[in-house]
């Protein structure tokens, strides 16, 4: 698949169809993969593909705005929803980008892998997808690790193993069948089961730990505002010091702004240096939007986002 990718990108660059291609490249350590911008044909070999390519590169589609030419993007099925939303929200013209869709059978959650191995990640020399297992190279030996143990949560209920939005595709795969023995919103439901007090304690603890580095915002494909309301001085929505009350406002307003926009790429949780379980917050947002308004972001270009739409017969508990 990687070869096919190199082929396509080499061709695109040779034809001058794109200014550069955004894919995944080898990171500093064997286990880490980083966004890789390729502008020269001879750099194409740098592009890699595998179960460590978690990043949602759609964020970089916005770069096309700054260029005269087009950018090429490697897009997983799940991340394709961001492309749809960006077009829907008038942030990019579909023809400003060249999308290379890549079939995916699940990405590794590095935090889980570290636990399962019981070793520091730096000993991991590589990870391969071999169907229902990952083949993890630790030092010299290769270990089979069942996907159930180390998959990113969102991959358990993967609906789009193949990018449904592409100009070129690296092929198709069947969605693998893993019995996650829990629904898409299982984790959210667990939290909902707790008492109000417990939930409050849980989130206050999480929000208190936030250092407001803004990584969750900056990595989010939907945070494309020219000026974020958190950066505005008048009105001043939050104060700069990462105090609990301010952090709470920050995360709740983000959840609000992502309602109907969050496509579950999980980037916010992945990049959070403080390991704040933002996925739990945004899964809740997706759950409510689905249950209240029967809406799923990034699926249909013509579907009006739920909070800027209404039905005369929406439920009304407010009489």
């Amino acid at each position: 698949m990687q070869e096919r990718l190199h082929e396509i990108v080499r061709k695109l660059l040779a034809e001058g169809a794109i200014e550069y291609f955004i894919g995944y490249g080898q990171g500093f350590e064997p286990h880490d993969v980083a966004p890789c911008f390729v502008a020269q044909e001879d750099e194409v070999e740098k592009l890699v593909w595998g179960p460590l390519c978690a990043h949602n590169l759609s964020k970089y589609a916005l770069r096309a705005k700054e260029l005269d030419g087009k950018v090429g993007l490697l897009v997983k099925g799940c991340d394709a929803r961001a492309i749809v939303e960006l077009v829907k929200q008038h942030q990019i013209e579909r023809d400003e980008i060249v999308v290379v869709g890549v079939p995916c059978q699940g990405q590794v959650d590095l935090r889980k892998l570290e636990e399962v191995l019981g070793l520091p990640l730096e000993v991991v020399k590589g990870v391969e997808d071999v169907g229902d297992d990952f083949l993890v190279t630790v030092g010299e030996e290769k270990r089979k690790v069942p996907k159930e143990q180390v998959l990113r949560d969102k991959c358990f209920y993967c609906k789009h193993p193949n990018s449904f939005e592409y100009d070129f595709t690296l092929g198709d795969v069947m969605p693998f069948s893993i019995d996650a023995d829990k629904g898409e919103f299982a984790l959210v439901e667990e939290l909902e089961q707790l008492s109000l007090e417990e939930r409050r304690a849980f989130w206050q603890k999480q929000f208190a730990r936030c250092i407001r580095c803004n990584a969750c915002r900056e990595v989010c494909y939907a945070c494309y505002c020219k000026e974020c309301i958190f950066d505005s001085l008048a009105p001043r929505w939050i104060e700069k010091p990462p105090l609990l009350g301010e952090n709470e406002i920050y995360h709740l307003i983000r959840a609000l702004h992502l309602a109907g926009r969050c496509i579950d790429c999980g980037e916010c949780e992945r990049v959070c240096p403080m390991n704040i379980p933002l996925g739990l917050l945004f899964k809740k947002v997706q759950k409510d939007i689905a249950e209240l308004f029967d809406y799923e972001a990034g699926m249909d270009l013509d579907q009006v986002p739920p909070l800027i739409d209404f039905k005369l017969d929406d439920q009304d508990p407010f009489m």
Partner: protein
Amino acid sequence: MAQEAHEEHGDGFEPRILVFACNWCSYAGADLAGVSRLQMPASCRVIRVMCSARVRPEFVIAALSKGLDGVLVLGCHPGECHYSEGNYFTRRRGLFLKQLLEYVGIEPERFQVRWVSASEGAKFADTVEEVTEQIKALGPNRPRAHS
């Protein structure tokens, strides 16, 4: 100073509730309650907006995080919006925000949406009474620790 007031009446905690009222229905309803001299707890502070749909959900989040005891958003009854559609958006935002707040541990009673028409002075008074009682029962909204 608020304490003095309490001592004078010897009762305990008087919640501070922020009320957004739309100019055409609910604010008029509140006025009617006044004209009719309907007595109600001194807990509410009304901010007039032209339409309940002007109320940013961010206002609710900010108000509660800043420690106000409750937020009440009042609008015209569905179908009676002066701008024909506004309160339908208010309704959807309300539905969503209520669940989000509850999820992070903010009591649902602290954020409520109600429809009050210009002729429903009594309903305004009753709503204030009712919501105040509910929030009194909860006690003060935990003041945010500024750690």
